[in-house]
């Protein structure tokens, strides 16, 4: 059986080279589009997750929470903040530090104000909370809101800010990008299943006589279908591998061009091609898609017995 499958595959490529090549080109093009979107999506997510890294929460302190290290209330509050699930680090920022930071950031816009020695920035002291990667990467706005609510009940906490509105918009944007990417991949994948299926159908039509002769000499439907499924698997494997190479070369070309024209973006380190695991999964999915669509279309085969049932009165 295995010998027959391989012999059939070899024969198909030798005697129907034109049809097979056309199918391969169309299929590889479809898969290359999917691969490009996956690469684009992955890089977009990477860039967006860099923004996510800046997620932090500021807990402004009440006036009576004094700044000296011996203040029991301050130490107690810091300990409670550190104990919250998802919190990575808690850093104290005094009034003076907040004022200095403000001056540094705004001096370019209002130099005359900040040159005034007696200028006192109206900022309270605060705790800056940074979060663990898991929470940042997920952009878990619900959990952040929960944490903010929890902290608001702590003694000594005046107000909490973490850019709620911006974060909500950002989370919605990321969710939208992910959903769109998934939908697009599904549409393109269905399209490629259709392409393989159509090509197998064409292949079946072109070899109707051959199939009838196989039936004539006693081939079971599985003996007729499996070589077609193997053809589909092989086409899927070849097309997805070609697609990965095409996308890789296109990606490298674009990255090199960007690196020359926009060197300040650190393109080489930020833009990455799909990882080995993703490439493996992509090729596996492409191969399985080819086999499945061939199996699906080849299921409709049968000329001898069923044909008589159709023609009966």
């Amino acid at each position: 059986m295995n010998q027959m499958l391989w012999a059939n595959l070899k024969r198909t490529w030798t005697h129907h080279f034109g049809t097979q090549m056309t199918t391969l080109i169309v299929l590889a093009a479809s898969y290359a589009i999917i691969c490009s979107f996956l690469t684009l999506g992955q890089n977009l997510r990477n860039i967006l997750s860099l923004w996510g890294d800046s997620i932090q929460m500021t807990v402004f302190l009440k006036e009576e929470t004094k700044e000296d290290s011996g203040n029991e209330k301050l130490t107690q509050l810091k300990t409670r903040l550190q104990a919250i699930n998802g919190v990575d680090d808690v850093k104290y920022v005094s009034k003076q530090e907040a004022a200095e930071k403000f001056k540094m950031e705004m001096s370019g816009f209002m130099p005359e104000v900040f040159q005034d020695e007696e200028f006192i920035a109206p900022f309270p002291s605060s705790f800056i909370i940074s979060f663990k990667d898991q929470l940042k990467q997920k952009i878990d706005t619900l959990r952040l809101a929960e944490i903010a609510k929890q902290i608001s009940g702590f003694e000594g906490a005046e107000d909490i800010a973490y850019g709620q509105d911006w974060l909500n918009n950002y989370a919605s944007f990321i969710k939208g990008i992910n959903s769109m990417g998934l939908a697009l991949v599904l549409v393109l994948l269905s399209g490629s299943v259709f392409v393989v299926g159509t090509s197998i159908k064409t292949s079946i039509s072109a070899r109707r006589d051959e199939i009838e002769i196989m039936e004539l000499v006693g081939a079971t439907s599985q003996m007729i279908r499996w070589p077609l499924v193997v053809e589909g698997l092989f086409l899927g494997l070849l097309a997805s591998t070609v697609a990965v190479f095409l996308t890789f070369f296109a990606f490298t070309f674009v990255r090199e061009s960007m690196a020359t024209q926009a060197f300040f973006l650190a393109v080489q380190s930020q833009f990455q091609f799909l990882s080995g695991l993703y490439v493996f999964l992509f090729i596996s999915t492409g191969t399985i898609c080819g086999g499945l669509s061939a199996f699906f279309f080849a299921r409709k085969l049968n000329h001898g017995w069923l044909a008589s049932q159709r023609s009966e009165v």
Partner: protein
Amino acid sequence: MISLSHIYKTYPGPIHALSNFDLNIEKGESVFITGPSGSGKTTLFRLVSGFDRPSSGAISVAGFNINELTEKEVPYFRRNIGVVFQDFRLLKDRTVFENVALPLEIKGQKFVGIKQKVNEMLDIVGLTFKREQHPEQLSGGEQQRVAIARALIHQPGVLIADEPTGNLDEELSLGIMELLDKVNAQGTTVLIATHDMDLVKKKRRRVIQIKSGNIVKDSKNEPNALG
């Protein structure tokens, strides 16, 4: 070996291809089925070879009850018969050797055994030196001999041939008929559908004449019957 009892075959229209058709062919017999176009020869051929089934009635071929065959059993039935067509039905992308070897490959036999059997069969049909050629490189007569070799390679009990000389000239036709005689002499039951009356007259065999889906003449029932 072949038995048809009260067979009716009706196609949409309705077209009554066979009506109350009865036929019995014994093991080792060689029988000509003759009749004009549209008489029901091809329908009979399709029914007996398991490519079609009757609207009603019972058919038994080589010990298989055709009426009760399921879709999955049909291939196994076909492995017990040999079928030859007017248009040869050879695989153009395979060599003579590969075409003849096909039924054995399908049966799952090993290559060494296949090689030996195919070479022997090609020797019988006189195509040993054409084994590596493709059907398109052969003459009509040679192609039909390949088709016969393919039909016989798995040693079926019954050989069914639909107009096997239909595309051949007189000389080649006689060559093919001699080959079929040889097959019959080895014990294979042979059923040949043909409208070539000259050929039929040259061979002293049982002749069944069909018209409008009914047997109008069976030489077996005649006083000076042959075969």
